[in-house]
């Protein structure tokens, strides 16, 4: 189902209901690539967060380096917040002359919202007209003038604008000041101070001139304390590192690259070998080589690069080498929408590579789960001696949300049946790399010790690793390898509910869709009529499929719909084959833009209406 088709009206109805406790303010910073949208958005986010607000931030960008049109969206709240919103309250544009995009943003402004632009810009009449139409205020601030006068350069007009935002949001100025000092202080103190001066000017200008017109506000929670604003990819990287990952080889591909760059930037500090390879084939092959040697290893990519890795994935499966692959999905097929989000690689990842071998697929949905997935991926990989895929996506890779430091726990490193050097010294008898065992997992000793000489083959092999084609051995080895999948299945985490028990309708979601669906649960149920109407069931460890837990959970549902960012409802298909459960309705979005909670609510309302009609 495509979105935004005659749904605006219903959307309004939902939004106009009073939302009891949870209040949100949404801000959008827009401009051309290279104009500082991303850094500005991140900066003001940090300041507002430190003020004591919950915050969700995500950027929308085109596949180009300069020009075009990007934006950064911030949702602020007095409660935890997990997604962007469709409508927003404050809009800062650095390229208001881009009429088409500007208008489309303005149309999404709430009544009473504000639009900050440089007073020097001569706005096109359509823009002012539309502003009036939606009932939003024009805050034409002297951005470039203040920047030039006080900072000595128009370049600082972004900072003036951020000051304006802080002013309208009534954020204590020292919060913004702190962030600016941290960000620019590295370059030079002078630059930092100039930026602070212009920010302050913007701050005061906004308070004096517009505060009375901007009626939205949130209570700052001064007790909130430290929270991280870290994105999904950084969380995966940090989880991997804390779980002992010491080798990462990769080839750049949006949106997988930032996992790699987290390591490259810190390679000396962390003692991690990072290798930018010539392609994705080499990326995974090197990681496998390092893993065979004994290092916890990983690679990261996106769909197209993952395609090139599937042969080597089978190598890892066949020779039982623990290795972690991050596939950060983006809009496909092929080059597709390189900077946009999608969840369309699920069945490809699960079935990737020819032949059959065990692999594990994790699909985290939040920043915390990204960290956890990083940790678990490396532990599970080594415990079961299998490749583990972390399937994330552009939306999760780049989003930030105020995150507890404690969620990034100190992991236990579980190396499974790893035989240490000391144990080897005492070993009697021949070491069999692929010994048949009850759980299919063979004790793993590294090459480099006089007692462990062996040479695994990607051909079918016997317990020593030597090539053999006999039918008997083949059957035993297949059983051994595939049995690991069954053992691992029992420790895959089952799905989790969010929202009221006994809801009339349960949304089945996986991966990053959790965020928007969770907000939709809150938004929808907050309407008095809808109290406890909907909840969600979120899957975040999907292969081997946690069938039992899924079946238990499904028993607690009445009417299920799947909500996925893809065309073919891949998760619903998987659920069907694994549990025989047929979701009643499938909601799909595949335009590369992340689902918004309001949008989901509209779908849900339609579904409920139709379902009631159908049973009437």
């Amino acid at each position: 189902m495509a979105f935004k088709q005659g749904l605006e009206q219903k959307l309004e109805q939902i939004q106009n209901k009073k939302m009891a406790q949870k209040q949100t303010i949404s801000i959008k910073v827009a401009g051309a690539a290279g104009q500082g949208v991303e850094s500005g958005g991140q900066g003001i986010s940090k300041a507002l967060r430190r003020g004591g607000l919950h915050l969700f931030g995500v950027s929308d960008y085109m596949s180009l380096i300069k020009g075009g049109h990007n934006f950064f969206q911030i949702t602020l709240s007095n409660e935890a917040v997990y997604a962007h919103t469709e409508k927003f309250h404050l809009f800062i544009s650095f390229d208001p002359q881009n009429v088409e995009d500007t208008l489309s943003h303005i149309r999404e402004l709430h009544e009473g919202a504000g639009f900050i632009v440089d007073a020097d810009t001569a706005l096109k009449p359509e823009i002012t007209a539309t502003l009036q139409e939606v009932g939003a205020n024009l805050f034409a601030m002297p951005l470039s003038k203040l920047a030039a006068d006080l900072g000595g350069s128009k370049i600082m007009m972004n900072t003036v604008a951020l000051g304006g935002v802080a002013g309208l949001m009534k954020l204590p100025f020292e919060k913004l000041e702190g962030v600016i000092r941290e960000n620019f202080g590295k370059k030079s103190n002078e630059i930092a101070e100039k930026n602070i001066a212009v920010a302050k000017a913007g701050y005061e200008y906004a308070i004096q001139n517009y505060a009375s017109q901007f009626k939205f506000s949130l209570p700052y929670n001064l007790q909130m304390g430290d929270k991280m604003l870290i994105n999904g990819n950084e969380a995966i990287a940090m989880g991997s590192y804390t779980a002992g990952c010491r080798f990462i080889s990769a080839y750049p591909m949006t949106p997988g690259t930032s996992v790699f760059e987290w390591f490259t930037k810190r390679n000396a500090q962390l003692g991690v070998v990072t290798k930018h390879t010539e392609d994705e084939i080499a990326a995974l092959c090197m990681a496998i080589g390092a893993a065979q040697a004994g290092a916890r290893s990983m690679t990261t990519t996106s769909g197209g690069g993952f395609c090139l890795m599937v042969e080597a994935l089978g190598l890892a499966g066949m020779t039982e080498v623990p290795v972690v692959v991050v596939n950060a999905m983006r809009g496909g097929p092929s080059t597709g929408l390189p900077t946009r989000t999608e969840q369309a690689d699920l069945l490809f990842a699960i079935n990737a590579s020819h032949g059959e071998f065990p692999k594990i697929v994790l699909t985290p949905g939040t920043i915390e789960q990204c960290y956890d997935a990083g940790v678990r991926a490396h532990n599970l990989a080594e415990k079961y001696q299998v490749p583990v895929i972390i399937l994330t996506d552009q939306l999760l890779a780049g989003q930030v949300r105020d995150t507890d430091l404690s969620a990034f726990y100190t992991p236990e490193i579980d190396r499974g049946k790893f035989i240490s050097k000391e144990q080897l010294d005492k070993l009697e008898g021949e070491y069999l790399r692929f010994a048949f065992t009850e759980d299919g997992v063979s004790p793993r000793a590294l090459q480099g010790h006089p007692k462990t000489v062996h040479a695994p083959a990607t051909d079918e092999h016997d317990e020593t690793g030597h090539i053999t084609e006999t039918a008997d051995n083949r059957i035993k080895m297949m059983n051994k390898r595939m049995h690991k999948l069954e053992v691992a299945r029992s420790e895959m985490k089952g799905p989790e509910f969010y929202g009221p028990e006994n809801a009339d309708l349960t949304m089945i979601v996986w991966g990053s869709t959790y965020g928007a669906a969770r907000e939709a649960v809150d938004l929808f149920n907050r309407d008095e009529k809808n109290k406890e109407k909907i909840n969600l069931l979120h899957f975040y460890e999907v292969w081997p499929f946690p069938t039992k837990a899924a079946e238990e959970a499904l028993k607690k549902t009445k009417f299920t719909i799947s909500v996925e960012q893809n065309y073919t409802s891949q998760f619903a298909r998987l659920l069907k084959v694994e549990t025989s459960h047929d979701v009643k309705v499938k909601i799909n979005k595949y335009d590369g833009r992340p689902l918004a909670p309001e949008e989901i609510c509209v779908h849900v309302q339609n579904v409920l209406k139709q379902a009631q009609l159908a049973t009437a």
Partner: protein
Amino acid sequence: MVITQEKTQVTVKDFKTDQKSTWCPGCGDFGILSAVQTALINAGIAPWQVMLVGGIGCGSKLPDYIRANGYMTLHGRASSIASGFHLANTDLVTIAISGDGDGFGIGIGHLVHNMRRNMDIVHIIENNEVYGLTKGQYSPTSKRGFKTSTSPEGAIEFAINPLSLAVSAGATFVGRSYSGDPKHAAEIIKLAIEHKGYALVEILQTCPTYNKGQNNDWYKAQTYKIKEENPNYDETNMLHAFELALKDDGRYPMGVLYHNTERPSYTEQVPALQQNKTALINHSLELKADLFEQLKKSYV
């Protein structure tokens, strides 16, 4: 390679395995197997101190027929997997083993890039100028006109010149030998092992099944030792190496064509390996609490 392990007294017996070879009778791969073994013995490297990473092909199966650490991997990827292994465990002597299809065909991208990086591994490429294991198709080193199932009118492609290519790609050691002279091959392999950086050793190989014309007699007539023909040959001169590699008299120069000892190896320059003078796999996995705290705080 920088050999970190102590030299070990080893003999042929140490490398003996029960695994039956699947090579055709008379295959040149037997000579290469024996050369590898001899080189290891002479270099004082025990079966557990070496890592043989094979691609896929007849010759790439070598690690299955010798008692030594090995890993038989994917067609064309030996160089990458060996490089990854080496970076994680610099204590073992890492040797990649390919056929001409494996190394110069499907795998040439990895080869070229790992050469210019000067990854500190040895890469032995067994060149029988044909695809053996898939039953005799022409390869990137097949001579023009070579008739095979995929070139029934004779190959119309110009063969790759592995040596000039290696030199221009940045390999710092380029040697050549031949399967019918395992003693010479062993010498070159030993030099390659002792070289610091990417060492390419091309070993011309007979394939009595699919490349019958180029049998031992033929090779004996077509090969010559560089140093015998020109005792003053200077293997450190890149332009000389090119000249020799490009010399088009139908004969194969054997020996060390090029040797550059000045370029640092990749391994020597990797911060994580240099700051902590032991192999990566021996680094502690323990998480330092203060570092962790600092990492987290940087996001607040």
